[in-house]
């Protein structure tokens, strides 16, 4: 689905954010991208939809080479990539519905979108994803009237309504409390499975990443230093990614939480139906 080859990003200041990154993500796979702050996680996913211009290398989405698109073609390509942000990045003064419909902007003309006259098919899509993420009761509320977890659900709905092939997720839980974080991560993983989406999830919480994703990529100073299953994150690997520290506690915590989660899974699922708002 997504194939990145030799991606390099050098900022105008001369900082090298990414160096010859090569990786590929098949459809339906959720990849967790971990690494210390400044490792280039954010630059990597922003290079994919070209919010940040890559300096070298190729990025292919299916057969489409994203790194050499004209402006117009880039707009069309971006419709196939949904993005979810750390601070939700909602337009506060627009309603929930308007925020979700903004995911369809790439498909409708300017004046139609300006007067909020979206095709009924788009409205139907928006209602469907709002129902899926459990926000049916908040459609005409302003985005800034919602709680953090609800806001992130709106962000997810906006990405989904694009009907993308790929999700780019930038620290989705960094502004949320632990319980809501898990609900949001679970929602993202479930949605990727339902719709067979590829996803790259930037995440700084190693334990949370291990709990939900099928594959982890570790970045350090712009280079890939680990690529494998969550179990492969041994203390040595973590030391290579983050630097020397006592990692046993982190790993044990993740395992324990995994067990606990398995034990209370039915209860959690019951509590975590989409209607439950964070």
């Amino acid at each position, binding site marked *: 689905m997504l194939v990145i080859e030799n991606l390099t990003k050098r900022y105008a200041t001369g900082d090298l954010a990414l160096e010859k990154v090569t990786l590929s993500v098949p459809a339906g796979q959720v990849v967790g991208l971990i690494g210390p702050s400044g490792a280039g996680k954010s630059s990597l996913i922003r290079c994919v939809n070209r919010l940040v211009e890559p300096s070298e290398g190729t990025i292919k989405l299916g057969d489409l080479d994203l790194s050499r698109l004209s402006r117009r073609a880039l707009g069309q390509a971006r419709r196939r990539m949904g993005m979810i942000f750390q601070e939700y990045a909602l337009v506060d003064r627009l309603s929930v519905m308007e925020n979700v419909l903004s995911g369809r902007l790439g498909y409708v003309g300017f004046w139609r979108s300006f007067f909020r006259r979206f095709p009924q098919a788009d409205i*139907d899509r928006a*209602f469907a994803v709002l129902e899926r993420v459990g926000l049916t009761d908040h459609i005409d509320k302003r985005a800034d009237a919602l709680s953090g977890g609800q806001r992130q659900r709106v962000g997810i709905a906006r990405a989904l309504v694009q009907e993308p092939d790929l999700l780019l997720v930038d620290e989705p839980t960094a502004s949320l409390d632990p319980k809501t974080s898990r609900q949001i991560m679970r929602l993202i993983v479930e949605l990727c499975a339902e719709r067979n989406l590829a996803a790259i999830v930037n995440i700084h919480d190693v334990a949370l990443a291990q709990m939900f994703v099928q594959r982890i990529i570790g970045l350090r100073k712009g280079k890939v230093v680990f690529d494998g299953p969550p179990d492969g994150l041994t203390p040595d690997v973590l030391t290579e990614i983050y630097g020397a520290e006592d990692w046993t506690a982190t790993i044990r915590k993740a395992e324990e939480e995994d067990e606990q989660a398995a034990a209370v899974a039915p209860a959690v699922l019951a509590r975590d139906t989409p209607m439950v708002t964070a």
Partner: protein
Amino acid sequence: MSAVSRRWTPPPLIANPVLRYAIYGGVALYLVVAFGTVELNWARMSEGVVRAGRLFAGFLQPDFTSRWDDIQAGLLESLTMTVTSTIVGIILSVPFGIGAARNIAPLPVYAFCRAFIAVARSLQEVIIAIFLVVLFGFGPFAGFLTLAFATIGFLAKLLAEDIEDIDPAPLEAIRATGAGWWQVLVYAVLPQVAPRLIGLSMYRVDINFRESAVVGIVGAGGIGATLNTAMDRYEFDSAAAILLIIIGIVLACEYASGFIRAKVQ
């Protein structure tokens, strides 16, 4: 997934439909009537196009030289008026500002200062200038008084609001050391409001310069009088020169005040 299509339109700004359409209708009606009462004299306007062209040409080729003596005299009056009125205005606005702050001034003083500020703010500078010219005669002295009066209204109000907003903790702390009213003022109040007072004063310098050009129109001296004369004689190139000088000086004032504010804060 819902099978039935649900319609959606954005919620309107005003929920009550009757009120909504009444407001829309009222606004439309007002605009139609208001435009209708603008009397347009087409003959005069076609004449105006030629003059506008001349003024525009004047901007491209301003004439600084032929009226330079008048311009220089007007400019000197405007600048001196600006400096004196700003300084006097700032000095007087401090006691008025302190007097108009409820948390440190006694009630009668507060009432008097607030009333004075309200009068100074609600009257247009030009109107004040007309009266002061009648009372004090033509010339920059009336202009100086006008601008000083307006400066007090502007600064004292903002200063009073600042003082009312200050952090009460240092006030308490200084009071607790047994300091008198003056000491509280100097050690607890002024340090908290001084940076903004300086910033606002700088801002007032260029407002006063702009206003000094205005008061000249009603005889209170300054560059406005020179401009008035130039326009009366249809000397558009001299008028353009004056306007460019005003723009240049305001620009310089803004630049300087930005620099000073950055230093102070």
